[in-house]
């Protein structure tokens, strides 16, 4: 078996900003292999967001080691971390975080304007961004502004942006938090499809039914992992979607019958 893409050994995070130091993460060790699909779960204040920020190289651990694709991130400066995020990680946020008044295509191109793609021609960048929009099924919406897209579509644009630099790990922070249940299934379907193609995904969620689409669930409580187990009887988004559609059709039939 190849070496894990993420190797975390006993990392801690202590926030010293308040009067009392807050020990948000208290010794988490974790290996993530290529092709995994992990849900990080936990109540509010369990440390899952802090762990996610450290996984995303947005924040540094106070103690412990984190190797991303074999690179010790503790040895990198601010700019090197930015390059690492650009090249090895993709981000999907709860609030989508697309640039307003910027087309879907330009939003997807954004990561390629920084980092190693700097030298690529604008045609190459455009082509690559369109390809990623195709993967999430939004190639026909490339010229739309975010405010012309539904929540689910915006999140798919955000996923395409996360994919565009072919990251080692796609990190999603409550990607379905702002979406209704049907759109959530739609977005989870995109994640499952990407995972089937071999992309490693780590997501934070507090919705149990969303976590059931993943392959492995981690539960955090008070800054430590209290449960780490593979998912039994995993939900498949495609089947779920079919069931929802049938239910909708049935509802319409019922409504029609009342007339």
């Amino acid at each position, binding site marked *: 078996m190849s070496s894990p893409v993420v190797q975390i050994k006993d990392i801690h995070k202590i926030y010293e900003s308040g009067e009392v130091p807050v020990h948000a993460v208290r010794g988490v060790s974790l290996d993530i292999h290529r092709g995994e699909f992990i849900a990080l779960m936990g109540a509010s204040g369990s440390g899952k967001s802090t762990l996610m920020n450290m996984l995303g190289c947005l924040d540094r651990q106070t103690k412990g080691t984190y190797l991303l694709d074999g690179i010790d991130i503790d040895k990198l400066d601010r700019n090197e971390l*930015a390059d690492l*995020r650009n090249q090895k990680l993709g981000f999907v946020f709860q609030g989508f975080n697309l640039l307003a*008044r910027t087309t879907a295509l330009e939003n997807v191109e*954004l*990561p390629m*304007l*920084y*980092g190693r793609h700097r030298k690529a021609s604008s045609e190459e960048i455009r082509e690559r961004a369109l390809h990623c929009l195709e993967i999430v099924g939004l190639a026909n919406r490339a010229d739309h502004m975010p405010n012309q897209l539904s929540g689910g579509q915006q999140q798919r644009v955000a996923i395409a942006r996360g994919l565009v*630099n072919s990251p080692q790990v796609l990190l999603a922070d409550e990607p379905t938090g702002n979406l209704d249940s049907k759109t959530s299934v739609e977005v989870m379907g995109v994640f499952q499809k990407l995972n089937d193609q071999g992309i490693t995904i780590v997501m934070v969620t507090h919705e149990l039914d969303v976590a059931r689409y993943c392959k492995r669930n981690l539960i955090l409580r008070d800054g430590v992992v209290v449960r780490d187990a593979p998912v039994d009887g995993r939900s498949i988004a495609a089947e779920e979607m079919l069931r929802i559609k049938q239910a909708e059709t049935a509802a319409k039939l019922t409504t029609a019958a009342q007339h």
Partner: protein
Amino acid sequence: MRFTSTLLVALRALRRNTMRSMLTALGMIIGVAAVITMVSIGNGAKAQVEAQVAAMGQNLITVMPGSFSSGGSRGGYGSSTSLTPEDADAILADVKNIDGLSPEVRARKQILANGLNWSTNINGVGPDYPYVRNWPVASGSMFTDQEVKSLAKVCVIGKTVVDQVFPNEDPIGQTLRIGNLPFRILGVLSPKGFSLFGSDEDDVVLIPYTSHMRRVSRQTNISMIRIQAAEPENIASVKIAVEDLLTQRRRGREPDFNVRTQEELANAASANAKTMTGLLAGIAGVSLIVGGIGIMNIMLVSVTERTREIGIRLAIGAHGRDVLTQFLIEAILLSSLGGLIGVAVGVGGSQLLSHYNGWPVLVPTMWIGISAAGSAFVGIISGFYPAYKAAQLDPIDALRYE
């Protein structure tokens, strides 16, 4: 990030708040336009003064009588009556590098000709006068040395006198009376316009200074001697030689004359104009600073407003430097666009002023460059702090910002 895409991002950000961008740029527009207009007006005034000084003649040195004291009351320069035609002859004979010299005696008299009368300046001068004053005779001729020596009753008249006394005919060859004396008109001077001090130079009748002293004003002294040095570099030496000679001729008496060069006069006149230009430009410059503060203010607002955008960019791999450049370029773009429009408004405004008010206006090309560069510089200065603030943001905090 590549420069062209940074430029596009900045342009888009400015277009997103078109009204706000325009109002911010308006500060720069007004500042730059004010600088350009004020400097144009100042320069126009200075150029006019310099033209008037040049019109007095070239390489000119004037000798005026000194002050005259009587019973403890001291008169100003020119009050002494000590300057004589002999002084003028001595200078012409002894001082080297002189190209021309003319004594001058002045009076104001009523003239009569053609059935019309007119009060004008009667100046007694030498034959070199038109040459020394750089003031050629337009038609006819100047009187000669011979006519000066023989106290001839001849004259050359200025344009204003022609207009007033000979409105519809050729004055040359006609006779003009100064008091009771008839003078034959030999020539007409070319138009000269107004002097540095605002008097009409063309309102003049030139007659031989000898005739003036004996027949018209009946005085023994002259009002001034105008000397033209051969070359600009001779001016200083001629001035010293004239001073030495006149001092020597006074045989130890207190020097009662005053020798001035045109340069001194020009310097005094253009120093005024320069002070005015500096003052105007200084006031206008203050509005540039105010414009810069406006840009800084708006850039700070813009950075706060777009904290989330900055967070996104930093999270997906932008370096602090990329964010800094983005906001800096936005500020420079804002101020430079304002500056360019300001230059156009300033140049246009100056032309309008000169067209409608008749003010002499000279748009200085150098100041257009200075204003354009200055506005870009103001953009850098006022944009740097907001841009630096944006670049230092922590991506996590910026993403959480509501």
